[in-house]
Every structure is written in structure tokens, then in C-alpha cells.
């Protein structure tokens, strides 16, 4: 058995994320078209990659019906103009769909099955509202396998507030406000735009072009956040302001073996170190990244103090706070979500994993003093996922 192959993240892109629903910018755009445009944009940015050398395409979506069905990886490959010889498949791990596409294909590269692979995800929550068409087995409730709250993500976030009374609503709002501010600053500094693939959008008033995320609210204030309703329970703590919204969007990234990247002269943005998924009680699914991160660190032989940059999916502010609290990191630690997160940008479920990686990759290039970073996210029905990456720009002598 040969040694494990080195797995590298060559490049990643995404569409601007839209607000879900009739008023959202992608209401007239198909989900598969979104991910196809992301893939085409990715391939156009990497002209040194011959299409026929792509060994696998894995595209994630949570609701795999209609324009998100039909074995997305294969259909997206065909629609992107990749040769018919390129295989593909669909993947689902709810919010961690794209992350799981990356880890699955990354594992395949490590094993030597693939040299080059495209991983990504899409979620059109306007066309496929969360939970549409689901049919949970009645045993979940009759045998009390999960609490009633487990299937309602907002309720799971309230349960974290219950469990940790020190995580107040005000603390969550403060975290949310900073997310909005950091996204606005990142946009102003052109940190986000370089990895966005513009999408032509059709409306009753003609064609337009989506070039920016639709969800951010840079005008957000703490006072404003305080007045928002708590839709998941009366006098609760979770609001639309301190949670990610309902969004449409897609992402795609190019993974390679170290050898293939070298052969084709591809620039390496990140190296895969380890990954792990772990389960927790479904009714507090937001805690999932804690055990998954501990596991990934263990497999990498690293400790949390070795991690210099964090990209954490902000499904809910309280859920990120729980992670930071567990590892003894401040809520406003500058290593965490430097460009802001899903609370501002949005969270089109299965596409978000690659967005985290895109942002971490860009931060790596600007932080040569950092050797390791991680991307982590919580997952519905009580899971967490963590991927640890190494910075190829790392320089011991950097400040």
C-alpha cells in the first residue's frame, strides 16, 4: 500500500448568495444553473486544468428533487461542458454538503483514486424550502429518539441558550452585529468579490447581473437587533438578526493531488491536513463542531492552539459562541471569521462549506505567519464537521 497522497485545495468560487423567495434575485434562476455557472467560472479561472483530467465531480444539495435532483454531480458536469467521460455524483449532509463533497473527494485523492476533482454544493431555498417533502419516520418521536425540537433548527439554537445561560441574547446580537460589520469591511477591502462568479438573473423587468451577496445588512445596529421578533418561542433569544437567513447560492472548488497540481503548474491555496465529522444530540445540533474539531485535531496531532485562523459557519450566533467558549476563545477574537460569516452573507445550506474554504484560503495568503486553519460547521440532526488545512504560504519568519 502506497503512502497517502497529498491533497490540495487549488481554487474555490461561489455565486453571490441571494435571499430566498419570490423577491430574491434568483427566484427565476434554476438551482442547477447556479452550480453550473460556479463550475464554469472555476474552470475558466483555471485554464491549465484539462477537463478530461477531472476524475470526479461531487455536488451536494439537501433537497435533491427537481432542479436539485437527477444526480447533480453528473448533470452539472455535463451542463458545464466537461467531457462526457467525466463522472459525477450527488451528495447530502444537509448544511455540510459541500464540506462533505470536499472531504469525500479529498479522501479519494488521498487514496490515489483521483488526481483532480471538483467538489461543491448548491441550495436554492426559495425553490426548495427547508424541510419540503420530508417524511420523518414516526419512530423518531414515538420512541423519543430525538426531541421534538430536533427538526426545527431555530429551536435547537434556543436549546443551546437554555443549556448555557451565560450565552445571552445580547451576546448573540453583539456577535451578529460584528458579523455584519466584518462583511461590510471585507467587501470594502475587496476580499469577497474576487471569488464570486457573477450570475445573469432574469426578472420581469429584464436581465440583470448578480455581483454581490444580497443578504448583508451593513446598516444593522444593536438597537435594531434588540427589537427583532423571536420566532421560535415567545421571549426567546434567537432572531432573524442573530441567525443565518434563508438563501440561494452555489459553490465549487477544485481539489488535486499534490503531484497533479505540480504537474499542471497549479497554484496551491491550502493543503488538507485532516477532517472529522461527529454526532451530538440532535436537539442541540449547534454543538456539533466541538466534538468534530476535537476529533480532527486528534487525527492531525494538533491542539487548538496550533490553529491560527478559524472559518466557522454562523448558522446561529449562539452556536458559534458555544464553540468559541468551549475552546476558550473570545467572541471577538480576530482569528475567527475575519471576513464575517453566514449571519450576514447567508447560508444556502449545502453550498456553504466551500464558502468557508474560499475565505480561509484568501486569509492564508494574507497571513503567512499562520500555519494551520480550520473550517467547521454544525449540521442538522446533530452533527458537526471540521476540516483542518495547512497554509502553503506559511513562513516561520513572518511576524
Amino acid at each position, binding site marked *: 500500500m502506497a503512502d497517502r497522497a497529498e491533497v490540495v485545495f487549488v481554487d474555490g468560487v461561489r455565486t453571490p448568495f441571494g435571499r430566498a423567495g419570490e423577491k430574491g434575485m434568483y427566484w427565476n434562476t434554476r438551482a442547477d444553473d447556479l452550480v453550473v455557472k460556479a463550475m464554469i467560472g472555476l474552470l475558466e479561472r483555471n485554464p491549465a486544468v484539462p477537463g478530461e483530467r477531472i476524475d470526479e465531480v461531487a455536488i451536494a444539495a439537501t433537497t435533491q428533487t427537481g432542479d436539485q435532483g437527477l444526480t447533480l454531480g453528473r448533470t452539472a458536469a455535463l451542463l458545464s461542458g466537461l467531457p462526457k467521460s467525466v463522472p459525477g455524483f450527488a451528495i447530502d449532509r444537509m448544511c455540510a454538503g459541500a464540506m462533505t463533497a470536499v472531504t469525500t473527494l479529498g479522501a479519494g485523492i488521498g487514496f490515489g483514486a483521483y488526481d483532480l476533482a471538483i467538489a461543491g454544493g448548491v441550495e436554492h431555498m426559495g425553490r426548495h424550502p427547508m424541510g419540503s417533502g420530508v417524511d420523518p419516520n414516526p419512530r423518531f418521536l414515538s420512541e423519543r429518539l430525538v426531541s421534538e425540537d430536533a427538526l426545527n433548527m431555530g429551536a435547537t439554537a434556543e436549546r443551546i441558550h437554555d443549556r448555557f445561560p451565560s450565552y445571552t441574547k445580547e451576546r448573540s446580537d453583539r456577535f451578529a452585529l460584528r458579523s455584519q460589520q466584518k462583511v461590510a469591511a471585507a467587501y470594502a477591502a475587496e476580499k469577497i468579490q474576487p471569488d464570486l462568479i457573477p450570475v445573469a438573473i432574469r426578472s420581469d423587468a*429584464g436581465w440583470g447581473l448578480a455581483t454581490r451577496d444580497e443578504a448583508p445588512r451593513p446598516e444593522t445596529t444593536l438597537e435594531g437587533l434588540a427589537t427583532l421578533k423571536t420566532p421560535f418561542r415567545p421571549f426567546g433569544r434567537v432572531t432573524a438578526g442573530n441567525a443565518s437567513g434563508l438563501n440561494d447560492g452555489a459553490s465549487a472548488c477544485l481539489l488535486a493531488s499534490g503531484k497533479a497540481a505540480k504537474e499542471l503548474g497549479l497554484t496551491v491555496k491550502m493543503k488538507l491536513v485532516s477532517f472529522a465529522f461527529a454526532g451530538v444530540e440532535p436537539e442541540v445540533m449547534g454543538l456539533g463542531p466541538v466534538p468534530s474539531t476535537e476529533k480532527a485535531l486528534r487525527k492531525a496531532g494538533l491542539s487548538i492552539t496550533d490553529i491560527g485562523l478559524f472559518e466557522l459557519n454562523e448558522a446561529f450566533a449562539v452556536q458559534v459562541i458555544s464553540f468559541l467558549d468551549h475552546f476558550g476563545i473570545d467572541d471577538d477574537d480576530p482569528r475567527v471569521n475575519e471576513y464575517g460569516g453566514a449571519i450576514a452573507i447567508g447560508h444556502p445550506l449545502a453550498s456553504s462549506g466551500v464558502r468557508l474554504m474560499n475565505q480561509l484560503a484568501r486569509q492564508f495568503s494574507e497571513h503567512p505567519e499562520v500555519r494551520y486553519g480550520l473550517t467547521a460547521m454544525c449540521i442538522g440532526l446533530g452533527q458537526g464537521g471540521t476540516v483542518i488545512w495547512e497554509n502553503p504560504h506559511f513562513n516561520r519568519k513572518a511576524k
Partner: protein
Amino acid sequence: MSDYSALDFSPLVALSADEVVTHSFVRDVPLSHGRVLALVTLDNGRDHTRPNTLGPVTLLEFAATMDALKARAARGEIHGVAVTGKPFILAAGADLSKVSEIPSLETGKLLAQLGHHALGKQSELGVPSFVFINGLALGGGLEIALNADYRTVDASVPAIALPEVSLGLIPGWGGSYLLPNLIGIENALKVIIENPLKNRVLKAADALELGIADVLFASASFLENSIAWAEKVIAGTETVARPNLPGKIERLVKWDAAVGIARRMLENRIGTVAMSPHVALDLLKAAKSGTRQEGFEREDDSLAGLISGDQLQASIYAFNLVQKRAKRPAGAPDKALARPITKVGVIGAGLMASQFALLFVRRLRVPVVITDLDQARVDKGVAYIHDEILALENKKRITSDEANRLRALVTGTTDKAQFADADWVIEAVFEELGVKQDVFAEIEKHIAPDAILATNTSSLSVEQIGAKLAHPERLVGFHFFNPVAIMPLIEVVNTPQTNDVTLSTAMVVAGKLKKNAVITRDTPGFVVNRILAKVLGEAMHAVDTGTPFDVVSEAIAPFGLPMTPFELLELVGLKVGAHVLDTHHAAFPDRFFESENLHKLAEHGKLLERDAKGKIKGYDKAALKIVAGGTTPMTATDLQRRFEDGLADEIKRMLDDDVVHAAEDIDLCMILGAGYPFQMGGVTPYLDRVGASERVFGGTFHTPPIRGVGAVPALAGAAE
């Protein structure tokens, strides 16, 4: 010099109360460095089955939109303007639905001027203008693009064309001036003159190669890439190369010569009767020099002349017949009655029968069995079909899988029992009543009682062919035209016995064969052959009585038919021609001529003298000898009158006899089955406008007659 903005376009608006308006929606697209592209979407709010069209209200809205954008550009708010269409469609051209109602030459001219007024604004915005050709761009649709500074094209666009001359029009919203000055005279002649006559359109790649589009992008990200490209052009980082742009030498040396060659080609091909291609040629010639404004003014005058003339009205009538009536055949029973066809039997294995078998197997993809008197003939027929399939495969028209599939479906047999499970049996045996009767009576013993029987007879009574059948209700006439694979018409002959299931099946089968079917009554010659027999009978009668061939050709020249009667006789075969005249004379001895001379010519074998390439040089000497001896020659004028009045009389009788339900069906048959030109409107609009209908039966086939408002067409360059 015309100042278009000073014109009053309200007479056009008054005609356009029910126009399906294609709106001009504007959205701003942010570019880098704070620049903004105003993106205009043309959308009529309907799906792709109702393409964007450009009527007066649409054009005025477009003009107002461009004015507003020009003002914004002047204020520095926008840095470029791009126009694109709704999904699959840029625009299908001018809205011609009201052209027949244009009351005067002046109003017609306004229509030309309004197009220039609106589309021309794209060149006066003060910022670069782009058209992103995202879909179908025909006629005025393409002229939107030609009026812009730059063009991109979506790789999947299936049809880009200036088809105007085939409709009796000219590209009159800038196309005739702008196109040759963009892509060179030879390319422009191809697009404006040659392609329409061949019914050809450009695909996206052709448009790029010719230089109509500056750049081509794949469909999936067409708009995104077009915007990114426009951004680079605006920023000055993209240089647009136009290798086909005509240079000084082209203008000095090539231009007039190319137009001359095209004119000779045109005269050879369609003669000089159809005006619009010649007017377009004049415009293209004049586009060599002068300003854009002068070019536009020439187009205004030319278009006004054509709009007020008869040929355009007849052409639009003909276009609508082919586009609409052909797709919803008059008198067709409910399609749901049609029997599904799972196996086809062809009686006969000769050339015609083999062509049928090939067509049926290609289009229906069901087993096709052919039969004949002996195994040798059957084998020959099957071999012919296999060879044709191989030829299609070699030409990459079908894949090898498809070729294998088709070959496996074709079998030959002398055992009629193999017809037992055929749902559709068509005969193509010798054109003799007794033979056809016996063939059907024989096959009926082997087939299911409700299998459909079809005969390809061109001259016999379908009802009589079925006289020996136990179930004559399942027999229908199914008359193809030669060459079977190409000619788009089938006359479906409905006998008094034919039931609705049979008739419906015949219509559905014709559709699946991708043919247009017209239902006719079971009368001699049905439609096309009866009218051709009338013309050819008159022509031969004139020859027989001493009129020279040339005078006969001269007499019918004003029709503008695709060929003279004598070329037509050689095309169908002199023997067949003589037979057709005989059968019609037998049926209507007082109105149709037979010709002993034609039989003699058939025996001799030829009529025309041709060179090695088959080009006509004159008349065969022996043929001239054969027809010599007539003593009462006619003048061309007299004979023209005989042609016209004879046709008006015969067609009136056909309609009175309900051979088909309407004059429209006669015209459709003549256009599709005999290549009669659009400018004649088939045949009846022509007969009305030359006064034949009035002379013969004191009326017209169409009320009101299909005519222009009557001005003499202005030729390009004519002074106002």
C-alpha cells in the same frame, strides 16, 4: 436629409392598437472601476413560442429608452449600453401583421423611417453600444444588432438571418447599408441575397466567422461573459479585430464585380420578376460609398415602394400559408382518431417504392417490409435502401447506431403473409387502374381488416382503385411529389368512402414524415397536377399550333415561375408529362389539351439542348423538327392571356367543385408542391391582381384582393 426625430409616426401607431409590444426593460449592471452598463432586455412578456417582434409601439418605446440612456450617458451615469433578448429570442423581426393595412406610400415609408429612427439611436449614445445576440435574430431583429457598435453571440443560437428578400422585402432598417460595410460585399450578398433564396439561415458560428458577431460565448454563461467582454471593450483593454471590414481596394475593385456576379446568379435562378432581391442588390451596390444617413434614406425609399407594391402583400400571404395554414390543415379530422403505426408495408420495390420505404423507416422508425413480383426486385430494393442509409451514415447525418437500427428495420419479401401485422400499407406500383385494383385486392387477404391502405396515384381515381376492396373505407390517396425526400407536400385524397380514422391517420403519418398535407377531393389530378396540366397543356397546345418555344416561355415569364414549361416537362420526364396531359384531357376534354407532339418528343427523349454541365443552351434540333408544322402561332401577349384566364377558370371550377375548401389551399399546394413563388402568392393572388379572375368570372378569389396600395416601387437611388 431626413431628420427622423422631426417625423410624426402617429399614423403607424394608429394601426397598432393590438400590437404585442416588445418592451425595453433597463437594468443597471455594475462594472469594475465604478462604471455602469445599462442592460436593455427586449421582452414581450410571452414565452418563446411568441417571439419578440418589432412593431411601431415597440420601436417608439425602444427609441424613448435610448433617448433616456443617452441623457444618462451625458451625465456620466452609464458607460455603455447593451441590448439583449428574452430567453431563446433576440427578436424575430418586424411585426408584419399590419403591413396589409398600410394605407399609403407615405405611411409605408414612415415604417422604414421609424426603424431607422429607433435602431439608429444605438450609434448616437455617446457611449459604446452592444447587442448580445442571445437567441433568434431575424430581419429587423438582426438589424438591432447591426446598428450597435459591437456584437456578441450565444454559441447555441440556431438562426441568424436577413430573410427579407424571400418575403418581398429588403433589409430596410439599416441592414442593406450596414452589413456590407461590416462584413464585406461578398459576405453580405450571401447573407442578404443568396441565403434567403435557399431558405438558409446562419448559425452562431457562421455569424462569428462572417464578422457579424465580434465574439462568441458558450450558452451556459453567455450573458455573464458578454458583460465581462463589454466591460473590457469599454475599459479599452479589449481590441476588437474586424478582418472582414471592407477596405479601399475591396470598394474599388471587388464591390461592383461581386454585385454583378450576384445579379447574374439571381437572374439565372429566379429571373427578374421578383422585385425585392433586385432592389436589395441595388442597395448593396450603392452601399459602397456615401454616408450611413444616405444609405438609410435609400432604404426608406426602397422599402416604401415595396410595401406599397403587390408582391410584398402576396408574399406575406404566402408566408402565412406556409407558416400557419400548413400546420393546421383545413378539414383534418381529430388527431386522436389516428391509428398508431407500428409496421409499414410497401407494395413495390422500384425506385419510388424504395424511396417511400426509406422515408418511412427514417421518420417512423418502425419495421418496413417491401414486396414485389420476384425476389430479385425485392433484393434490389432493399439493397438500394441500405445503400442510402450507408450514404447518410457516411455523410454523418445519422450515427452508426441509428444506421444499424434503420437497416435492421427494413426487410423485403415475396411472401405477402409478412404484411399481416402491418398497420399501414402503401402501394407504388405501375400507374394503371387494373394493376392497382388487383394489388390491393390481393393484399387485403393478408392484412388486418382495419389496416390503412394508401395509394400514391397521381392521376387515377382513388375510389376506383379501391373498387375491388372489401373495406374501401380504409383506403386513402397519399400523393407524394418528386423527389420524395425533399418536396414538402403530400396531397391526401379523401374519397367518399374514406372514413375519419383513415383520413386522420393519413394526416398524422404525413406530419410524422415531416411533410405538409393538404386534403383534396378525389378528382382528376387533385390540385397540383391539375394546375400544372393546365399550364403545360396550354404550353404544348401553343407549340403544336406553331408558336415557338421561346414565345411560350416569354408568355409565361411574367409569372416569375422557377422554370419554363419545357424545363418542367424535362424535369418530370417527357413521358410522364405526356401521360398527365392525356389523363386530364380524358377527364376534361373541352378544357385540357393533349399533345401528340409531346408523345413524339418523349419518344425522342429530349426537348432542350444542354451543355456538358447540364446548362440549357437552347432547344434540341430534332425536337424543333418534331414540333414544326403548326400554322396558327400565337403572340406572347395572347398566350399570356390564355394562361392567366385558363388558370382562373380552372381554379374557380376546382373551388366550386370543392376539390379543396379554399383558394388558400390551392396556393399552399402550388407553393409546396410546385415551387410557385411567394411573390405570386402561390397563384390566386396573382390571378386576381392581373385581372384574370375579373375577366373570367367577374370576381376575385380574395376579397379584398391581396394587393399593395399601388404605388410604383421606387428603386434604390431614385431621387425623391
